[in-house]
């Protein structure tokens, strides 16, 4: 299997936007805070043809920013992103249709004033995948494939439930015939029973269309269920990446271990469950800790961790870990 997505040293900074007053003050020699926020720093990974890479992390870890870069919504500040050797963006504009996206909030990601048939067919018409006259049959076909009644094509988004809207959003993305699908928290806003329906739809379509996926979620069990490989992010960097089964069964990075221990397990026996919560809170991305970003919360931290940042290094098997003590 060959790599279809190659990301090397992707970085995204957000520069604080200076107000006119700040700029005038700066011109007169005042010290104005211009420190950029690094949302994603130096992230490299590859996704193989037909593989689903799960991207896990807590809020503020940069997983959504990374997803938006891969989806071609946000240009990277530095680094390189290619599909089969072709860049995803040129001059800040996305140039490929091979990557499509499913967003988290199906209430926001559909234009409230467009009928869903038009929402599904506009991309394919604009890119000449279909002719305008073919649109009704095309839309009906896609609605059926995502489990909706083809007759609903003339309805507006507010006439649908959250789960149904997410089906429409999936149809819109897949109607562009992408090779790669970026799913940014696609089930986070759905109820458990609806979440299961959407995950099943995702699994079915992924297999039928041979899709390669980047699946972003904060929910470890959802990611485990759909991913072949997983990447764990902490404060803008990948701290561990490898086959899902290996990472979940034997996490090597202390953060991955802490995260897995934090998830409440379904208690089926009468015994009491004990939690091993990670101590402390996420540091601010404005002032990341020195050395390993996880060291203030890490039970195994040493002076080496405070001084030097560990590189993401391969370990036995296919797992790579960024930890001095893995």
């Amino acid at each position, binding site marked *: 299997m060959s790599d279809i997505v190659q990301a090397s040293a992707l970085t995204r900074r957000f520069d604080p936007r200076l107000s006119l007053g700040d700029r005038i003050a700066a011109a007169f020699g005042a010290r104005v805070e211009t420190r950029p926020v690094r949302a994603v720093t130096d992230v490299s990974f590859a996704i193989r043809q037909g593989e689903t890479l799960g991207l896990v992390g807590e809020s503020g870890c940069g997983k959504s920013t990374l997803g938006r870069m891969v989806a071609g919504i946000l240009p990277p500040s530095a680094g390189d992103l290619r599909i089969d050797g072709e860049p995803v963006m040129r001059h800040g504009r996305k140039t490929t249709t091979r990557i499509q996206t499913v967003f988290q909030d199906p209430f926001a990601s559909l234009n409230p004033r467009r009928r869903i048939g038009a929402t599904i067919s506009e991309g394919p018409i604009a890119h000449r995948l279909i002719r305008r006259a073919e649109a009704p049959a095309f839309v009906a076909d896609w609605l059926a494939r995502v489990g909706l009644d083809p007759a609903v094509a003339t309805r507006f988004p507010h006439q649908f439930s959250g789960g149904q809207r997410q089906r429409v959003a999936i149809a819109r993305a897949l109607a562009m015939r992408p090779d790669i699908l970026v799913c940014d928290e696609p089930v986070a806003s759905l109820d458990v029973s609806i979440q299961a*329906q959407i995950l*099943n739809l995702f699994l079915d379509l992924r297999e039928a269309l041979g899709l390669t996926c980047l699946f972003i979620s904060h929910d470890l069990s959802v990611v485990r269920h759909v991913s072949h490989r997983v990447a764990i992010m902490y404060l803008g960097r990948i701290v561990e990446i490898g086959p899902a089964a290996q990472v979940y069964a034997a996490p090597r990075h202390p953060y991955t271990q802490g995260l897995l221990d934090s998830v*409440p397990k*379904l*208690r*089926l026996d009468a015994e009491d469950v004990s939690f091993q919560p990670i101590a402390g*809170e*996420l540091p601010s991305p404005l002032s990341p800790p020195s050395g390993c970003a996880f060291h203030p919360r890490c039970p195994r931290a040493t002076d080496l961790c405070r001084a030097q940042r560990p590189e993401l290094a391969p370990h036995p098997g296919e797992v790579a870990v960024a930890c001095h003590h893995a």
Partner: protein
Amino acid sequence: MTAPLLEVEGLRTHFLTRAGVAKAVDGVSFVLQPGEILGLVGESGSGKSVTGFSLIGLVDPPGRIVGGSIRFAGQELVGLPAEQMRALRGRRIAMVFQDPQATLNPVLTIGTQMALALQAHDRVSDRAAAERAATMLTRVGIPDAAARLGNYPHEFSGGMRQRVAIAMALLNGPELIIADEPTTALDVSIQAQILHEMKALAAESGTALIWISHDLATVSALAHRVLVMYAGRIVESGPVGAVLRAPLHPYTRGLLDSLPAMTEPGRRLRQIPGTAPSLLALPPGCPFAPRCPRADAACTAPPPRVDHAERRALCHHPLEAAA
């Protein structure tokens, strides 16, 4: 067994909307013992939050309690004058919301707010109030509590704000805390910290807790007993372990099977088909029947109550309960 702390009998809370009567809570009955942790589980629209709000008399119009009784330590709360309800609220019954912003005043320091909460019910000197507030903040895991009394809510992170809200709820030593999705908006690692502390706090203070959540796993980690709600009714109740191990009601079974953790990775999940019915137009008989794999003609009649040891379910065709 001691006298129950809370007895809810046939509670019905309806919303009179322009489109019709939405039966958000329709005949809910349960009993809560002192010190017990009760998990109230359901999906959106199941009526779990409205049940919580009904208990403390915070149902906003067009919602209204139209029937049933809520007895708290022997006192009837349905129809209690607003004045007496207010006196009860915050002192003997406290509430923790999903969004701590809802309880915290953004323009007052934490210390001031906690002192006001204390002094609203008791004559407490400012110094004593500050001391008690600091003690309580320390107990919910806020480091350097005495110094942080001077901070405003926005100076705390999301997880810390929820801890402050929990500390405020605990301040007057209530007999019952109702927590509505208190960890849903938080990250897993912060949720784990709060669950851990909540469990310890409830055990050491003897406070009873109603934990409202959509997350079966969280409830299973915390609660002694669980109530599963669907379309305004409690469809199943019983000890957490027994209910989750071998549910009686097909809905509980379906909810469990929907969790990715219950299926081998990559395999299709055993999903519940369809969506929850509109509360404005519930099907006759069992509201779950249209989505239920076991449903037949009998299910158009109201489902009977099935008793199995400590467990109960509302179902014509309950699943076999394992020993």
